[in-house]
């Protein structure tokens, strides 16, 4: 049974969103989303924002990667046979 405290329920929504709930809680939360309009709306808002965060991914410059690789080669210990 999910706790009826609102903040705890909202925290469970976050756990569910990130696939960290136990199976029994997953079923309960899914049922709450399906039957409670307010919870469903809140869950959708959280889900939309989560999807956007994945859009923020960036890559370093090729120059910085090459600098790292050059450093590694230059400082590599000598291999002895």
């Amino acid at each position, binding site marked *: 049974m999910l706790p009826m405290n609102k*903040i*705890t329920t*909202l*925290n469970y*929504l*976050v*756990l569910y969103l*990130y696939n*960290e709930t136990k199976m029994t809680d997953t079923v309960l939360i899914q049922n709450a989303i399906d039957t409670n309009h307010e919870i469903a709306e809140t869950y959708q*808002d*959280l889900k*939309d*924002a*989560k999807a*956007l*965060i*994945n*859009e*923020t*991914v*960036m*890559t*370093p*410059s090729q*120059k*910085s*990667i090459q*600098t*790292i*690789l050059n*450093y*590694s*080669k230059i*400082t*590599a*210990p000598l*291999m002895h046979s």
Partner: protein
Amino acid sequence: MCKTTTTDHELVSRFLNGNEEALQDLITRHQRKIFTSIYLLAKDRELSDDIFQETFIKVINTLRSGNYNEEGKFLSWVLRIAHNLVIDHFRSLKRMPMVHDTEEYSIFDSLPLMDENVEDKLIHVQIQNQVRLLVEELPFDQREVVIMRHFADMSFKEIAESTGVSINTSLGRMRYALINLRKLIEEKQLMLTK
């Protein structure tokens, strides 16, 4: 034939045996998460590149000195190093990074070298940029949990242990981060669809 992915552990071993390509593979595998995590804290591209380099130099030196233990995940370990370097940098300046609204961002850094519709790509980059600025506006503790969950792949339990708070606190911070992002999007009336 079943293709298996080489684990980080195996790549580290190969690197320590003199295989420099293994290091390149590790960087290629994790560069986006590590660099994005650094950038979301540092908020400056040039500085983030510098810290990215410093991070991996430290990784290389630590691996070769035999001081890396295999208890934790490689990515989490590297991100901790990066995180500490960012904090050290701003501590030395005695300030935390401010949001730079007019920060230059080279779209050519994100455009792939493919034959795609350029206009669609430019719109996508614009969206990425706008969302990134929104994440940068979040309070530090909320931004930190976003980075740890999205880029370090840490569970909320691990985040709570790492940051010294209860799991409910780390969940609350993520919840506020997501809610605040939604509010910022509405306030700025951003058109985030293509």
